[in-house]
């Protein structure tokens, strides 16, 4: 997978302004409508390559551009400039081909929450051209491997905990056996045990499947454990890239005992403190 000079800027208007006294009434509304939107640079000249079979981490705080980058690769956004290829297919010109090779787990387990896990998975199987019976059998295997009680797969998803829902999201992404798996903060908000189970499974699929993983996270310990290489992103720009071991060697001078962490490196390259999980929920 290759990204070359990717850029994405959004034009936004702060809708909360509509509630301020200045923008009340028809005059205020017209003033709001006439106001210029503010450009927000979400991804700024991002270039990197991911080797086949690699687990590549994108690390950054809330609003750093991680999810925008994932959406660009997932063919859900059009870049303003630059290009990205997923195993030889351009994400803009050949997005249909790219969609056959990828799947994604996002920070929010997005499902029809009134439907059961099995109904949601059956629907996903149909969209990916899989035979539903075989696909649901495979999904149940994945769910059981993740410590999910098989019987709960037939009740409404809304009655499951967030951790359980996220496991169903992982199963949905995995049962299509994607060549590229985009994991957008898949363990955010999970309890330590669920987090561990999902992380173990990511390592397992890398060793057993023909799957390349792009993982975004703000959990440095997770990135250290799972990723072959990591890239730090801040304000839409990549500010450091390398294997966790290489980066730690490069920045060993930051601590007298040499036991430098990825958080220390982030602080060094951005001049910013690493936010806690509660501050960095979503992107």
């Amino acid at each position: 997978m290759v990204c070359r000079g990717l850029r994405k800027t959004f034009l936004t208007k702060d809708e909360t302004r509509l509630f301020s006294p200045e923008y009340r009434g028809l005059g205020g509304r017209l003033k709001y409508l006439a106001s210029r939107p503010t450009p927000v640079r979400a991804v700024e000249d991002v270039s990197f390559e991911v080797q086949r079979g690699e687990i590549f981490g994108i690390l950054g705080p809330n609003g750093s551009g991680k999810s925008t980058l994932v959406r660009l690769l997932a063919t859900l956004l059009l870049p303003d400039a630059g290009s990205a290829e997923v195993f030889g297919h351009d994400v803009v010109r050949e997005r249909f081909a790219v969609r056959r090779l990828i799947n994604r787990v996002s920070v929010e387990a997005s499902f029809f929450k009134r439907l059961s896990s099995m109904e949601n998975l059956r629907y996903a199987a149909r969209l990916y051209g899989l035979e539903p019976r075989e696909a649901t059998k495979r999904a149940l295997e994945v769910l059981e491997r993740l410590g999910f009680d098989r019987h709960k797969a037939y009740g409404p998803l809304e009655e499951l905990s967030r951790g359980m829902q996220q496991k169903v999201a992982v199963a949905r992404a995995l049962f299509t056996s994607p060549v590229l798996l985009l994991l957008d903060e898949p363990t955010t908000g999970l309890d330590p045990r669920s987090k561990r189970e999902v992380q173990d499974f990511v390592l397992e699929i890398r060793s057993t499947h023909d799957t390349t993983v792009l993982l975004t996270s703000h959990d440095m310990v997770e990135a250290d454990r799972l990723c072959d290489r990591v890239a730090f992103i801040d304000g839409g720009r990549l500010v450091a890239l390398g294997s966790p071991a290489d980066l730690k060697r490069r920045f060993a001078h930051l601590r007298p005992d040499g036991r430098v962490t990825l958080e220390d490196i982030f602080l060094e390259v951005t001049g910013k403190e690493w936010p806690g999980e509660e501050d960095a929920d979503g992107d």
Partner: protein
Amino acid sequence: METETRPTTTGSIPTAADSARDAAESGQAAAESARVTGRTPGLRAELGAVIGFVERNWYLTKRYFGWELVFLVYNMVNTLTIALIATHVPGDRGRMVLYLVIGAILWGYLSVIFHDVSESVAWERWEGTIEYTFMAPIRRATHLFGMCAYAIVYGTVRSVIVLGAVALFFRLDLAGANLLGALAVLVVSSVAFIGLGLMAAVFPLLSTEKGAQATHIMEAVILLVSGAYYSVTELPRWLQPLSAVSPATYALRSIRAALLDGADFAQLLPDIALLAGIGVVLVPLGLWVFGQGERYAMRTGKLKRSG
């Protein structure tokens, strides 16, 4: 980027990875370098996706069965209320009742198609599933026709139930009616309604809440200009050109002719042909409008979860 193809893929489900391995084994991988080719989904896969949308909406109908019952009863009572107006109109009471009932039922049917197609986009944005649906390797036409297919089946079943209930309530005599002809008109007009629904679906794609509001306005204007409860000649002259381009005008006219006057297929043919022509124009136009909306949403980041 690596050119090697890893040989291990577990699971018995045909996958893109399997295709990559197949290509490597047949020597294509060398020629294609690092390019991995997923299996091209054929007609069977696209048909499977259409079934997927129908199945998904059926699951949702079952889960919200209580509400479905409420909507059905409401629709039935609403139709009866409108039909009861005819009891105070001088002349052929039965004919007038059926005239209004046809308007109410066709209006209900059109609303189902409009809502199912456009609101399912809004619903997916609220649930956050829209990115997953748009990311799936299926054609947009397949996605939209899947939603429309369920709407047509659901709308037809609901309309038949309401018509049956109203016929029993008023003891309507449908002996001379051309029911098959009316059904044929409904089927052909559905295609045109789908075209309108596809255009309406673009609104929630651009803005979830405001889009749903815009859809309702569009639907209300069609109600006004199509003569659901009156002849379109009663409309002000400046509104009448709109009734001429609304497929609902011709659908109402010919269904009334079939049910009230027992018009045969030959008599219905001009309107059926006209409706088919409108459908031929509106469906590709609706797909094009939706495609433009999708491209705009991809440029501005509107596909994200909303709500």
